[in-house]
């Protein structure tokens, strides 16, 4: 497998990075990088970690070309070399990371998740109301991994806060069975993209074919998270198998949520190199527009509208000729 870290990868331009991922030879993971400056979204670090952990587990080789870029210390401080047991050959003075980033974490069970949520709050050094949506997103995404992904390496999480834009960028990645395989148990997605679209639709879960879910799964987690990103007018990416869906920035004055993700301003592709598992990347602008209670009102409306549609469909009408 080959991954090249270009000069800059963020969710807006991540398509090129994903397309360039070469997954052909699984005996070796070769990682190269831009020589001058590398700036990547945390989701990219999570993806590399997921691949690296699989290589380590299977005693396969990781060839990480020595980084020359001036920004190379970022990768060291995010813990990439540590989690993969690689020698970065960098001498970095570790500062208290408070206020900037959450280094790469591998979360394998509920108690690790609870500890992580408690520990990450001071790391971000944000006002409590700004931390709420971040906690929410990480809890829901990581629990999705536990419940659906069957990932032996658990969930890989990291995040970076950008003070200038008041934005947090989050990555949550697993190397499990992927969304299509999860949903195949009860639905019939024809492609990875079709499975992603189903997974983003409220009421659909991989644990039952019944709309509304089971006692423990409502099938609403991803819809809530996509909606949070939408009201913060930022990016949301989900990539699994060969498919990817990206919620694009929406600058319309009034935000309207849709239960059908294809009605949102988005891009999609179903011919990406195959990713074993699921990749979620999120940008969340933490300014005033991100009002969690407002989001809940909007979500309630979506459910009401969808109920009206369902009721319409239920009632038979007389035939007139």
């Amino acid at each position, binding site marked *: 497998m080959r991954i090249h870290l270009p000069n800059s990868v963020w969710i807006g331009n991540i398509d090129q990075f994903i397309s360039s991922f070469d997954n052909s030879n699984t005996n070796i993971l070769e990682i190269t990088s831009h020589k001058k400056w590398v700036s990547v979204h945390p989701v990219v670090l999570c993806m590399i970690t997921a691949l690296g952990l699989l290589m380590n587990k299977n005693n396969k080789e990781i060839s990480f070309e020595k980084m020359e870029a001036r920004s190379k210390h970022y990768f060291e401080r995010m813990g990439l070399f540590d989690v993969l047991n690689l020698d970065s050959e960098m001498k970095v003075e570790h500062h208290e990371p408070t206020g900037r980033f959450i280094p790469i974490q591998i979360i394998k069970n509920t108690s690790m998740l609870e500890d992580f949520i408690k520990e990450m709050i001071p790391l971000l050094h944000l006002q409590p109301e700004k931390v709420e949506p971040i*906690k929410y997103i990480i809890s829901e995404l990581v629990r999705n991994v536990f419940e659906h992904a069957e990932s032996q390496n658990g969930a890989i999480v990291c995040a970076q806060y950008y003070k200038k834009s008041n934005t947090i960028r989050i990555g949550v990645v697993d190397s499990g069975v992927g969304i299509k395989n999860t949903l195949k148990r009860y639905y019939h997605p024809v492609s990875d993209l079709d499975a992603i679209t189903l997974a983003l639709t409220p009421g659909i879960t991989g644990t039952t074919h*019944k709309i509304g879910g089971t*006692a*423990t799964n*409502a099938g609403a987690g991803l819809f*809530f998270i996509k909606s949070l990103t939408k009201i913060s007018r930022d990016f949301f990416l989900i990539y699994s198998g060969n498919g990817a869906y990206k919620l694009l920035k929406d600058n319309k004055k009034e935000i309207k949520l849709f239960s059908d993700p294809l009605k949102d301003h988005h891009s999609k592709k179903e011919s990406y190199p195959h990713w074993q598992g699921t990749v979620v990347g999120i940008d969340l602008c933490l300014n005033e527009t991100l009002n969690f209670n407002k989001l*809940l009102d909007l979500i*309630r409306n979506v459910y*009401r509208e969808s109920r009206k549609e369902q009721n319409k469909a239920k009632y038979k009408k007389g035939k007139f000729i």
Partner: protein
Amino acid sequence: MEINIYQKVGSFAENKDIAKKIRIKEILPILDANSDIILDFKDVESATQSFIHALISDVIRKHGIEVLDKITFKNCNITVKKIIEIVIEYMQDHT
């Protein structure tokens, strides 16, 4: 009968395993005994939809929506209240 949610999950109610345990070991037996129940959310700052769903959806599914006459949600802040309302509303569509 009153159940203090904060004592079980802390200020961020997200652990669905605990929600399930509360539902099975406490809420359902109390309701089965035809008693009323108070779920006290004092000091719970936020909750995930998944937690609330795991806590009450199956209660509504098993006992019907009338069971809400026997359940009182106490000391909910606005966020927790809205999440509970969403779960109650969508459960009414699927019971």
